[in-house]
């Protein structure tokens, strides 16, 4: 079985995002990691191939520096990778999906494609749907349990309020992974060393006939979410405190 996993190179969620100008951030000192949700996809792909044989191919559209993310995916057990290089800090989902599709068609269509449920930097929640549609494949996103039965996949997704949907779809298909699917492994030192020797095929976005300037969504402004400056502390006995809190919430804030 051939499995492709789409892995995005994103700033660590604990990193501070320092703005640089109106539409960019200073990424020089920021630690980048694989998009956390994509790691569930890598883990699932690797464990399927460990059982059934085959290969896991990582596909990343991103800056030169994304090599570090690709190597970490390889240390988890992926066999090889394709890296499509971009220049800009942000690439819209339409163009990203187009690049992912082009790469997979050229490399030979996989039996299964994993993505994350969404990326934690742009929080776009759509690339996987565009990829699936353009390849004519079924997709289920936010999958927390997956069972494969021959050419059929059974996926479970949470839909809020404690409800879960169980969906059936045929292979090949696209699965957007989320927490619950598995526990991504921590690569051991020998795996990290081995990963350094694995093949990464590199190409430029322009070689796929895609131009970053054709984006249908462009950033007009980026701003910090205002931080609160510190709480107004409510003093007194417990009774005084809750009385005052209820008054504030009702009369001043009008939220209850």
């Amino acid at each position, binding site marked *: 079985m051939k499995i492709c996993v789409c892995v995005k190179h994103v700033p660590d969620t604990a990193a501070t995002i320092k703005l640089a100008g109106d539409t960019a951030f200073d990424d020089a000192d920021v630690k980048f990691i694989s998009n956390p949700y994509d790691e569930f996809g890598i883990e699932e792909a690797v464990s399927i191939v460990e059982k059934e044989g085959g290969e896991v191919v990582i596909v990343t559209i991103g800056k030169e520096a994304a090599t570090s993310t690709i190597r970490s995916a390889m240390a988890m057990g992926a066999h090889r990778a394709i890296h499509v290089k971009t220049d800009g800090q942000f690439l819209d989902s339409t163009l990203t999906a187009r690049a992912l599709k082009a790469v997979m068609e050229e490399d030979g269509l996989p039996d299964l494609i994993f993505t994350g449920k969404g990326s934690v930097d742009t929080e776009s929640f*759509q690339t996987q*749907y565009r990829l699936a549609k353009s390849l004519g494949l079924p997709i289920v996103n936010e999958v927390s349990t997956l069972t494969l039965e021959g050419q059929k996949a059974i996926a479970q997704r949470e839909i809020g309020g404690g409800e879960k949907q169980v969906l*059936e779809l045929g292979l090949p298909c696209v699965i957007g992974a989320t927490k619950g699917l598995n526990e991504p492994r921590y690569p051991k030192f020998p795996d990290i060393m081995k990963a350094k020797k694995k093949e990464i095929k590199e190409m430029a976005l322009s070689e796929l006939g895609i131009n970053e300037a054709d984006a249908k969504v*462009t950033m007009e402004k980026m701003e910090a979410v205002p931080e*609160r400056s510190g709480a107004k502390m*409510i003093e007194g006995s417990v009774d005084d*405190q809750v009385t005052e809190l*209820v008054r*504030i919430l009702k009369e001043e*804030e009008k939220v209850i």
Partner: protein
Amino acid sequence: MANTAILIETENSVVKETSLGVMTAAAGETIYALLLDEDAGAVKEKLAEYGAANIVTVKAGDDLSKNPDLQAEALVAAVKEYGCQTLLGTASSTGKDLFARVAAIKDVPLVSDCVAVNVADKTAKKSHFSGKTFATLKINDDFLLCTVRPNSVEPVAAAAAGEVIEFNADVADPGLVKIVEVKKDTGKKLDLTEAPVIVTGGRAIKAAENYSMLEACADKLGAAVGASRAAVDAGYAPHTMQVGQTGKTVSPKLYIACGVSGAVQHFAGMKTSKVIVAINEDKDAPIFAKCDYGIIGDIFDVVPALTEKL
């Protein structure tokens, strides 16, 4: 005044508050309120009161509810039928999924989980980097497709005609994905991501059964109950209740954090809440530096007293 479609979500034949907010986001446009496979009867008046010029019941055969692709095709057909250049909905789990399918079918841009939308300018504002920044995005296309984060637009009544129409979408089932089962939890709980008020318990809750204290408070507030990761990891609450970077992103009008220290990963999931209240026994707890109102005290004293007062 352009024709603008809004996908309406209902629960037990009542329009969700979040959908009314989405209609308000399109105030000033000619609103087509779309109901998927549902009769307008029970919700007609409410939709008219909040600005629906037209209320469209969209049908497409018997399998609509079991097939997300068919639902998306039906939405696309309805939008075309009424010449709408904008489609907005709620960024709920079903809304996000459906709109991404619509975006892929129409091959138009989508901005998911917006905190503000400007229909006339075709711009939308949304969170980036787990709530650390807001990006204002320009949509370079004739069609505007966005989901709006629950509770980010306060519903405002704006009476309109509320003409009821039935639309039978002539769409074929792509036959790709089928919902074979919906598993419900014991008793339908309020969805965290859509709740207007959330009461969250952190590690300080100490035992799963102590969540009943928070539930009593939440019941009085019409709130949902959340948990920190420390509480989930300790086995006090299921992961479905977790708020934060690896849990749910929520944006209620009021967030009450009980015995939560205020880690960045927790804030990543709730910092765009309108009002944040923290109850913590430690006066130096980091959360007090990042919230609106603070009470220093033992949650096992303060929460029951608060419930009593509500």
